[in-house]
């Protein structure tokens, strides 16, 4: 059973905040989902290679040539805050 403190630690890694009001419920749901994974532990996977994706071994790769797919201005239009084509964030260094 995963404790609420562990769930809080995981949330920090994921840059999510769980309020004190929600933590009990979130932890219960978290454990409910982990219980679904218990069945995996009984499978004998000795010597079985992990399958990362279902692609063929040789993926078709293109030549790595420089080209502009999207303009800088086009990308910056969605920036929540920008100045002179740079993304603005709160001050990091005093």
């Amino acid at each position, binding site marked *: 059973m*995963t404790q609420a403190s562990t*769930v809080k630690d*995981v*949330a920090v*890694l*994921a*840059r*999510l*905040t769980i309020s004190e009001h929600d933590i009990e419920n*979130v932890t219960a*749901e*978290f454990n*409910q*989902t*982990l*219980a*679904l*994974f*218990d*069945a*995996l*532990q009984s*499978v004998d*996977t000795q010597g*079985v*290679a*992990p*399958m*990362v*994706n*279902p*692609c*063929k071994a040789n*993926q*078709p*790769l*293109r030549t790595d040539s420089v080209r502009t*797919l*999207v*303009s800088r201005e*086009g*990308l910056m*239009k*969605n*920036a*929540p*805050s920008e100045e002179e084509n740079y*993304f603005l*964030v*709160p*001050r*990091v260094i005093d």
Partner: protein
Amino acid sequence: MSLTFKSIATLSHDLKTGEVSSRQLVEQAVARIETLNPQLNAVVCLEAEQALANADQADAKRAKGEHSPLLGIPMLHKDIFCTQGMRTTCGSKMLKDFVPPYDATVVQKLRAAGMINLGKCNMDEFAMGSSNETSVFGACKNPWDMTRVPGGSSGGSAAAVASGMVPLATGTDTGGSIRQPAALCGITGLKPTYGRVSRYGMIAFASSMDQAGPMAQSAQDCALVLNAMAGHDPLDSTCDNTPVPNYHQTLEHPIAGLRVGVPKEFFSSHLDTAVATVIDTAIRELERAGATIKAVSLPSTDLAVSTYYVIAPAEASANLSRYDGVRYGYRCEAPNDLQDLYFRSRTEGFGAEVKRRILVGTFTLSAASYDQYFMKAQQVRHLITQEYDHVLDEVDVIAGPAAPNTAFALNDTSKSITDMYMEDVFTIGANLAGLPAISLPAGLVNGLPVGLQLIGRRFGEAQLLNVAHQFQNRTDWHTRRPTLEAVR
């Protein structure tokens, strides 16, 4: 003349003979969306003016003698595909104001084929859900019964086609998100082989399983659209360069001698008994068409759910780490510092189900849990894939239900989170193994549609569409329509 529910093939013929114009098709589609959508909530963005301008261009091309099969046909995209200049939200507050500066390859290809995009369809937030209830725009309703879900995550796409708004909508399928809503709304939906259709510009959920496909009224229409969607894309290294056949050309092949495998695990306690009867009848219809039915076994069917719900959230937690409030997407008000900006933008921007999966994925990828969960799930994925491959050595296609039951009620609080995850029990296997699969209407239970699922070999879309089309030549389930009495 009503053009609603006419097939793409028929509309294409009518456009060619001049019986109808693309402008008329688009005008009727827009009118129908405006009438039905306030209650159905299938469409979250409608750009009628631009669509009409594009329709006029298509009509001008027809007038000059151009007659490609999709030219001038109206359609909608799932709101997961980036559309240049048209808002793309993925059903999330996180992307509520996001206007992509480029088109997804699927969008570009269907436009190049002449299709007219009218707008975007509702969906579960970041494609995480089986009911379309996790969308920031609210739930989409099932046209067959407004008190029920259309399925998910491509619920808006399924409802739009099922209600006759458009003859075609795109969908994406990571664990059943094309096939389950297609089944619950009584339409035909195809998830192609992983790598058959480009994922470029398709907002990522679980990158090793995400795949785009057509949702339409029939296998024939799906074939016409897949011809345009499929093929290698230099912008997606997982997009395969296997040559694309003409899917429409092989639809009429007889299926005598076809070997159909029926896994006993697909008729387990998860399956509603009335749905089981419909599926059994549908399989007997394939037998009457000359197919040989063979009992097969996929013992890991239940295990696939556990495997999927480790791998998909893990990949999602990595993919969704890009939403940090800095470069695009939602940013919280007046952040105190950079960490506060990250935490509050993500906490306020994501919905509950998305946060639930990010948490689980972050946990299973963490150093202490990686071997126990993520590595283990990837090994089991390998075994499940071998199981499918072994069965498909013995039979040509696997047949069974697409979903364990018909459309369930909206706001069904009796369903736990893991109950909801079990909705995907029959569809997930094809995603883990990267196989193509289709859902097609096979009957009704208490007035609600049931979907027959067919799973094929890698790059075996032509055979799946052929079998589905032959079934639809012999049955009329795909021509049944909801009355929509509650909507009018």
